[in-house]
């Protein structure tokens, strides 16, 4: 049985439709991503899962509970990190964890959590003295302090520098290894590609596709783009007649070849036979951004 089951979720704010029609299921133990551009309805969707908002249509079930009816039970078993939620400026890290630990029947050990999150050295620091990454890690710690079975994390790494972002990603993998099912809301495709077992692409309140990151990319586009500067002049036609090649272009001294399947092998074989060296060689493959464009006709950011 799925741990989260969302069917035909619909939510409006007044006249404005935030979520048109969203359905997906999340299995126990997976990291499930919800990816989409600003305003797609991601936060609204997870807030319905968390029981913070009342859906206007459709059904939501989390751990077999109805988030609006069995709210008290859900609060004990679902950890939440909200997009944009701070703590009182002068509250200290350890105080925040102790306070929140006291709310749960079966809390995690605050010291262990501080250790795992790399915040032990900051335990006596006031919230306002923490860096963005530290605040984010504390926020994750608070979402895990109740030993939840499921954690919903909204915009985990927005506003963090790349280094801090990678640290948070490692942390999430660690948490999942501990058996927590994770729903991750993001608009970074790199984050989704790196962490998620499966993900839902959401656009304008609708699900555009649900699949593994690799499946999404493969499904829409296996085109590759090869760029290099040949060490000696060579005619376009040599490449154009290869069956794998779709197009050949020149950009100054550079050749840009696009194609599918084994195109890289085909191109490098030609070069090898003619003893031409490919300088500044780059190969771009389709990624989730391209998948998103192909599915919705729009860019992710």
């Amino acid at each position, binding site marked *: 049985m799925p741990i989260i089951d969302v069917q035909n979720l619909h939510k409006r704010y007044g006249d404005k439709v935030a979520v048109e029609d969203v359905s997906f299921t999340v299995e126990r133990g997976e990291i499930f991503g919800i990816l989409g551009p600003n305003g797609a309805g991601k936060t609204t969707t997870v807030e319905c899962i968390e029981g913070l908002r009342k859906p206007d249509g459709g059904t939501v079930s989390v751990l077999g509970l109805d988030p609006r009816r069995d709210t008290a039970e859900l*609060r004990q078993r679902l950890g*939440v990190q909200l997009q944009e*939620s*701070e703590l*009182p400026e002068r509250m200290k890290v350890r105080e925040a964890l*102790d306070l929140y630990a*006291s709310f*749960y029947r079966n809390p995690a050990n605050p010291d262990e959590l501080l250790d795992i999150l790399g915040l032990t050295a900051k335990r006596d620091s006031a919230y306002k003295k923490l860096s963005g990454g530290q605040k984010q890690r504390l926020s994750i710690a608070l979402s895990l302090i*109740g030993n939840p079975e499921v954690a919903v994390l909204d915009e985990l790494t927005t506003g963090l520098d790349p280094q801090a972002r990678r640290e948070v990603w490692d942390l999430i993998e660690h948490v999942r290894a501990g058996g927590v099912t994770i729903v991750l809301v993001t608009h970074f495709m790199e984050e989704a590609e790196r962490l998620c077992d499966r993900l839902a692409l959401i656009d304008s309140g609708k699900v555009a596709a649900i699949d593994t990151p690799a499946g999404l990319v493969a499904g829409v586009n296996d085109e590759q783009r090869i760029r290099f500067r040949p060490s000696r002049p060579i005619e376009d036609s040599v490449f154009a007649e290869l069956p794998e090649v779709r197009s050949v272009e020149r950009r100054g001294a550079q050749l840009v070849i696009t194609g599918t399947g084994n195109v890289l092998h085909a191109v490098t074989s030609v070069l090898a036979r003619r003893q031409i060296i490919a300088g500044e060689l780059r190969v771009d493959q389709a990624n989730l951004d391209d998948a998103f464009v192909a599915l919705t006709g729009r860019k992710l950011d």
Partner: protein
Amino acid sequence: MSALGKMTASETRLFLRDPGAPITVVGIPVALLLVFSLIPGASEPNAEFGGNSVMANLIAPLAVAILLGMLALTIFPAFMATYREKGVLRRLSASPVSPSTLLMAQLIVNLVAALVVVLLVVVIGTAVIGMEAPANPLGLTVSIVLGTAALFAMGLLIAAVAPTGRAAGAIGSAAFFPMLALGGVWVPKEHLPSFFQGVADVLPMGATYNALRETWAGGDPQLLQLGSLVVFTVVCLVLAARLFRWQ
């Protein structure tokens, strides 16, 4: 410890760490008492005030009323509105403990602070400065309780509608200072133009202040004062309960 107990302990720490709140709560009333007591004869019986001293008739009630007003109308609403603005209330909504527990904890902390102010003023006033003790302690207590209720109900209404901590502070001040003037705190109500003398016993600041003056001198609080405090309490609480936004 219960969630409310834990939260109250936590809010107490945060209140004490606030750069303004503790200094305001202790400093202003103590400074008012000490500074005015330096005026020669301020603690002596004075015929102009029906045989009471200036300290007991004007300054001590003023210290209590001003501090109740500041706690209730600016400090408390600013804390709550900041919690809303920063998403603290919302984070609690997603936890097993409701944000109303935080509201309760904040009220408890501020009411205790108010009690500390009253005790400070009475103790320092009588023991250190040598002014006379309140002559109608029961009446004084009733006036303080009803005044506190009315002012905090107003504060709750401000906390209910102010979108940010700054806005709460601004709205609070905009209610506080005019009410001081209209309540006869700057100019005693007997010297106000006759129209304003009626108003002075109606608005919560003035009603509290003037009831404190009466009872300190041994009189009874006026029905108008107590009645309007009750009406303000009820009206503000009903509005606040309707308008309060938790996110």
